[in-house]
């Protein structure tokens, strides 16, 4: 379908945020967010709670609406048009803090639902793909169970596999380990690191796991009070933070 909006059609960018602003009522939650993400780039967004970091990535697949500025995903500006969104979201996978698996469906059905109903892939083929990704997240033996029977770490790995089944170009992670018990965090991070190291997929990850950021991120973005405070490669970001706010934040989380 035709997209009449003006687009800075730069093919190499997977995501462009241009002067994006968002308000919740009178509360200015995102202020002039500018961010260009290259295809295949892996970005970690961190910051204190309430800084707007989750809101940024939720705007990218339009779970939240921005009021000002532009969001361009895969060269197409997001207009909020329903058909455009459905098409765009098949290319943008998302993992949530609380997994949001569908509790009434088995793990396998969770994974095949969107491929079958959105991409019209035949059931047998969708199931084969699902099993492939379940093996990648190391829980093929749980395929016939229900989400309620799995541990938090297993559920989050299923959620990642579910997103991958749609073969997305971009993956958004919204604090994927924040709701997990401590001993389950590493099993999820391992999966994410593996995914990042394979390359090819653009990843945006909101997380407090600084070890993960150091290992895989191409860039780390620090946000506070609705704006981007600092943006740098991980080495510089952690060893030589420029702004006072970043220094304070890093001292608070790393010292523990």
């Amino acid at each position, binding site marked *: 379908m035709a997209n009449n909006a003006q687009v800075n059609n730069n093919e190499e960018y997977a995501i462009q945020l241009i002067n994006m602003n968002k308000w919740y009522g009178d509360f200015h939650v995102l202020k002039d967010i500018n961010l260009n993400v290259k295809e295949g780039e892996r970005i970690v967004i961190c910051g204190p709670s309430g800084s707007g970091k989750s809101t940024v990535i939720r705007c990218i697949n339009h779970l939240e609406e921005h009021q000002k500025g532009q969001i361009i995903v895969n060269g197409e500006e997001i207009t909020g048009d329903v058909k455009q969104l459905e098409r765009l979201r098949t290319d943008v996978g998302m993992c949530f803090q609380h997994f949001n698996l569908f509790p009434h469906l088995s793990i396998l059905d969770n994974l095949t*639902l969107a491929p079958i109903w959105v991409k019209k892939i035949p059931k047998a083929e969708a199931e084969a793909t699902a099993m492939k990704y379940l093996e990648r997240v190391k829980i093929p033996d749980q395929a016939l169970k229900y989400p309620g029977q799995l541990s938090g770490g297993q559920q989050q790995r299923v959620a990642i596999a579910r997103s991958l089944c749609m073969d997305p170009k971009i993956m958004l992670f919204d604090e994927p380990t924040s709701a997990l018990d401590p001993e389950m965090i590493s099993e999820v991070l391992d999966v994410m690191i593996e995914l990042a190291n394979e390359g090819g997929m653009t990843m945006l990850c909101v997380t407090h796991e600084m070890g993960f950021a150091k290992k895989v991120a191409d860039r780390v973005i620090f946000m506070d009070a609705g704006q981007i405070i600092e943006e740098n490669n991980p080495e510089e970001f952690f060893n030589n933070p420029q702004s006072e706010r970043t220094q304070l934040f890093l001292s608070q989380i790393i010292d523990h």
Partner: protein
Amino acid sequence: MYVTDKILPELPAPSNSKGLIHWLKTNLFNGPFNTLFTLLAAYVLYKVIPPAIEWAFIDATWFAETSGECKLENGDRKDGACWAFITNRFDQIMYGFYPEAERWRPNLAGIMLVLLTIPLFFEKTPKKAWLGGFILVIFPFIAFVLIRGGYFGLEAIDTGKWGGLMLTLIISLVGILFALLFGTILALGRRSSMPIVKSLSVVFIEFWRGVPLITVLFMSSVMLPLFLPEGTTFDKLARAMIGIILFQSAYVAEVVRGGLQAIPKGQYEAAAAMGLSYWKSMFLVILPQSMKLVIPGLVNTFIALFKDTTLVLIIGLFDLLAIIENVLGSDNAWLGFHTEGLVFAAFVFWLFCFGLSRYSMALERKLDTGHRN
């Protein structure tokens, strides 16, 4: 410092059963008040139950050609129940004034429905969705053609002649099916982000919920024909059914809305984030979960609907109760056996409602996937 030197074994849980005497002591005779109430209750039961059993079973007359066999020589009633009234007029209680020679048609429709439904209860049945769709979409037409007739050489039987339990079941099944369908659409409409859809749904629900069903039925049979162009006739049964469906769908809508609201926002977001359209995310993700949550409320509404079908007697349709109360009650051959008729009608209604209730409980257990939101 302390380090354990052994892993403790698992032991069976202590048994709670300590015998009948213990149970009686803790549940029926723990204290003077409870003892008193237990004895009182036992006395009341002793006074009520044996005579009731005697009336209903031991002294009852089950079969008789005439009402005389239920009476003593001096014309007074015998002590026991006269079920012969029911058994003698059983066909009319089941079918109303439906012609005897054609009763195989509703029977066939009923048997077909049962045979088609049975496979749905087995896990292994292939293509269950198609079978379910056939029952919901195609079968009603088959049943209508069979029972109403007028096609394929079947004699047309006017709906005014339909009656008895058959009519009660037809109104209830059609009512439940369509009330569920419209109610669900209304519930989605009431939660729609489109202002017009939302307002229309709210107005519809609040209007129909605010009107007594009796009024709806009177309106449909007395008022509606006044508004229709002269000469148009509109089947009385169809009007009653439409009234019941509109009325009950408002209730179903509110029950379903409760379920929709109980589904966490994350489910809507996850479905949307995967590219599912509104309708797909509703039918594949949200409704299956919310319907499961509201099974108790839905069954409540359906039971109410089933019993409310008895109100059609006020517009001159003869359902199970109306046949017993108005038709057979004024039948000279069986005057004076009113109580038996009402007890029987109550028993039939109770049987269906209880069955529905038990089925819904089994369904809830079956659909439970161990997840609590």
